[in-house]
């Protein structure tokens, strides 16, 4: 990682910390919602955008993190419970990833969907650990003997975690392992030919991605003070997949943009709806906008927000339209940067 980029990320993180200290209660709530979503979106992006494994079980991993952190935090482990929650989710991630060693593309996506339902179910029935449907009540985080109460403090902790996640993702992108992810995504047979241990590479992707999902889950647990099964259902998993697609698969800044967009859009619609006095169909309007957004994005800008921004801000107008358009099939495939074998 180059020095300049490190400094820029540090500056942005510092700016976000200062911003959050100046914001009010609602601003802080939005800030840590976006930051936590960003951590989890970055984690999923590592798995799907870099390594090409689509997963609908991200919410399950967040849930594992939240319950682990909640139980450990209640038992007095303090700040240590956050990395430990990450570890637990990393293990769960590797478990979910095991079928990926045999399955590909569509089949694997279905297996993760099933895994999501099974974890969901486990959260409901493992009463001693999760307190079932009513949910686990979580004490506030204790940090070096102090009980953290203020929203601002939580937002700052979340920003620090996001900063660490970001640095790790950038770092991984520059290691041999990161390159191996890309080769596995492009073509598993080629990866084998290059001497890459495909199974091990995939499991690493799942474990690392799971770790950060667990950290996000832990942060979510400490800020909401409650971990309940319906908070970690399939719809949250779909939200995360939407984030990385809307942001742009395989793009780190894209994941942040996507997380911010998908988190803030409902809030925005809420405001507009309250202004227009349509409170009774508000939740429907929110969902409708979300569904439409996914559809429109995938049809018109499959590379996501990051590509859109790049195109709008780029001074080189030549790249707005490619001079020699390639066949649609080729273009679409390379734009998403993903090539799953077309299932016949």
């Amino acid at each position, binding site marked *: 990682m180059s020095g300049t980029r490190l400094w820029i990320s540090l500056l942005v993180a510092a700016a976000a910390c200062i911003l959050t200290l100046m914001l009010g209660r609602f601003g802080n709530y939005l800030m840590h919602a976006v930051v936590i979503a960003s951590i989890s979106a970055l984690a999923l992006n590592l798995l799907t955008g870099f390594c090409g494994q689509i997963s609908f079980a991200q919410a399950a991993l967040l849930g594992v993190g939240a319950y682990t952190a909640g139980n450990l935090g209640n038992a007095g482990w303090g700040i240590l419970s956050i990395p430990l929650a990450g570890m637990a989710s990393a293990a769960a991630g590797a478990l979910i990833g095991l079928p990926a060693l045999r399955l590909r593309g569509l089949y694997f996506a279905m297996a993760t969907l099933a895994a999501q339902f*099974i974890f969901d179910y486990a959260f409901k029935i493992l009463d001693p650990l999760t307190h079932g449907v009513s949910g686990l009540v979580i004490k506030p985080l204790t940090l070096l003997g102090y009980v953290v109460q203020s929203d601002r403090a939580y937002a700052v902790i979340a920003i620090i975690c996001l900063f660490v996640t970001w640095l790790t993702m950038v770092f991984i992108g520059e290691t041999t392992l990161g390159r191996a992810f890309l080769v596995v995504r492009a073509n598993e047979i080629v990866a084998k030919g290059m001497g890459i241990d495909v199974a091990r590479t995939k499991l690493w992707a799942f474990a690392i991605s799971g770790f950060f999902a667990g950290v996000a889950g832990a942060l979510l647990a400490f800020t909401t003070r409650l971990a309940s099964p319906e908070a970690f259902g399939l719809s949250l998993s779909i939200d995360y997949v939407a984030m990385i697609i809307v942001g742009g698969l395989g793009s780190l800044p894209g994941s942040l943009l996507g997380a911010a967009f998908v988190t803030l859009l409902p809030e925005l619609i809420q405001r507009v709806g309250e202004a227009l006095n349509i409170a009774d169909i508000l939740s*429907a*309007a929110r969902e409708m906008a979300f569904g439409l957004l996914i559809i429109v994005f995938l049809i018109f800008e499959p590379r996501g927000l990051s590509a859109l921004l790049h195109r709008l801000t780029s001074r080189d107008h030549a790249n707005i339209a490619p001079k020699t358009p390639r066949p649609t099939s080729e273009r679409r495939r390379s734009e998403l940067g993903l090539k799953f074998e077309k299932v016949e």
Partner: protein
Amino acid sequence: MYTLQLATAGLAIGSVYALIAIGVVLIYKCSGVVNFAQGAFVMLGAYFTYAITRLGLTPVIAVVFSTVLMAIAGAATERLVLRPMLKAPVVAIMMVTLGVLIFLRAVALAVWGPDQIAFPKLFPDGAIEIFGIFITYNYLTAGSLSICLALAFLAFYRFTAIGLMQRCTADNSRAALAIGIHTSNQISLAWSMSAALAGLGGTLLATLNGLSLGLSDIGLIAFPVIVLGGLTSLPGAVVAGLLLGVLQAFTDGLVTPMLEGFLRAYTTIYSVGALQQVLPYALLILVLLVRPQGIFGWRGSERL
């Protein structure tokens, strides 16, 4: 006797699952798209039937109208959403169908609200006794109707000219194009048939379980069914649907009480919750790992 009672109830539900799953397989065979929006079609079909009976039409006409509307909705989804993404990778197409699911659910939420609605009675109340088993008319008609529809559809697919064109498109779309089959029309047709079947399934499910947004989640059961049935096999989907229906009924009626008794005696867990709902997904993973071609697929459909 209790076992038989459970089995018949399971078969009735399972035949509706089969109807829904056939639609998913149909689309998948024809265009390689896995349609997560099938659940939304299931839900929408039931709501359409409800809305039309509210207009004062008789239930039979309402079902016919709602089926036609669903066929249009299916074709419209294909034209507007899937057609522009014809060559996009699997992941993008999966996601776009999820977008359709979210959108249609939201539409239903806006129009009909989040609460459970009393569904109009399509079949008479009461039950009959066959060999000592009591079956309500609801279950009997819903079950036999959907199994007949499923078999009729299989016959249609196998023996008619349109069915032949469908099979050609599914088998090799380029070759189908070469012999003069308008493949994109066939794909639209597959979508409208699939949505119509799903809508019918939804109407039948609503007569059994009542009408709510939750019907769209039941639609997801199509995925364990088609994986079990081999993903590209229509008869497989029918058999797997029936099998899962019975398995769920047994889990609910026999396994859960036994398991709960055991757990209460030896652990602090006092309930296993809705085990029958998660069972199909556990089975899905197991089948994918042990026999990915499903129970009716052939080796060629295995992709490892």
